[in-house]
């Protein structure tokens, strides 16, 4: 094994998609933790969720696979004129359709709560709201 190959296997560059997803996830989590603005927190939460959704989508990819729609004329065994057709896995996509809906519902609710908080506190900044709570009980 030469050096570059050893480097690749030791840090796992072969799994570059996962590194990307983890980076995206941490970006989202960092925004949720570090930002005081509630709307930005919701955006961070969205990025965090998107990373998880992308994880499922990458998982569904089958090398050389096509969209999982049986073309007209294909027999039930999946052959098409003598060729085997390789399909990508549709199940994770279906699961993510549900996860996206959950994400939309969460975002809608979070924004609605943020609007309410703005109405009650007069601010969308978490630190200012904390100060307001300390002053007003």
């Amino acid at each position, binding site marked *: 094994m030469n050096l570059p190959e050893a480097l690749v296997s030791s840090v796992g560059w072969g799994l570059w998609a996962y590194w990307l997803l983890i980076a995206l996830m941490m970006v989202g989590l960092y925004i949720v933790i570090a930002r005081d603005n509630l709307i930005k927190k919701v955006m961070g939460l969205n990025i965090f969720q998107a990373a998880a959704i992308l994880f499922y989508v990458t998982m569904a990819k089958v090398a050389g696979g096509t969209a999982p729609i049986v073309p007209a004329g294909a027999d039930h065994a999946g052959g098409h004129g003598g060729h085997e057709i390789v399909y990508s896995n549709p199940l994770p996509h279906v699961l993510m359709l549900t996860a996206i809906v959950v994400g939309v*519902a969460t975002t*809608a*609710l979070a924004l*609605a*709560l943020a*609007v309410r908080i703005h109405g009650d506190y007069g601010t969308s900044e978490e630190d200012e709201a904390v100060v307001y709570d300390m002053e007003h009980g």
Partner: protein
Amino acid sequence: MKPPSRVREMPILRVIARALVPVILLFGLYVQFHGDFGPGGGFQAGVIFAAGLIIFALVFGAEALRQVVPVVLTERLMAAGVLLYGAVGVVAMFLGGEFLNYSALDPLTTGHYGQHLGIIVIELGVGIAVAATIMRVYYAFVDRRADEDGTGADPALDAGAGGEAT
């Protein structure tokens, strides 16, 4: 000539929106019913349909949309869509199958027809619920200014309950 300041007064937008909205709605229906044969289905169709109506509202004003689809109607449709979905499942149970077993809807043949019928009705329920929910969320945020004093509406409840109904 000074360009009109408000979106609603821009003639180009008004003309194009008037032409596009029906096409978008039609495309929504196509995606809805083509879902049985190819890519499509209730989720996508519902969003497209609601988006068409929301474009209409953005150009012609929320009041104009309110005359077509009142807020109360969106709330009712939201619930009705979910109930339509559930009803298919319950009917299948009464016909002797499991919950949502579409084959039971068609006891005479081998169940092939029942599968078609079941999925079409279910997707219709999904489409209605999604479209109504998206519009209800839109209304919830548009109506904020009207009751800024806060006693009347509860956007948290509306948006949340709506989102979940899908």
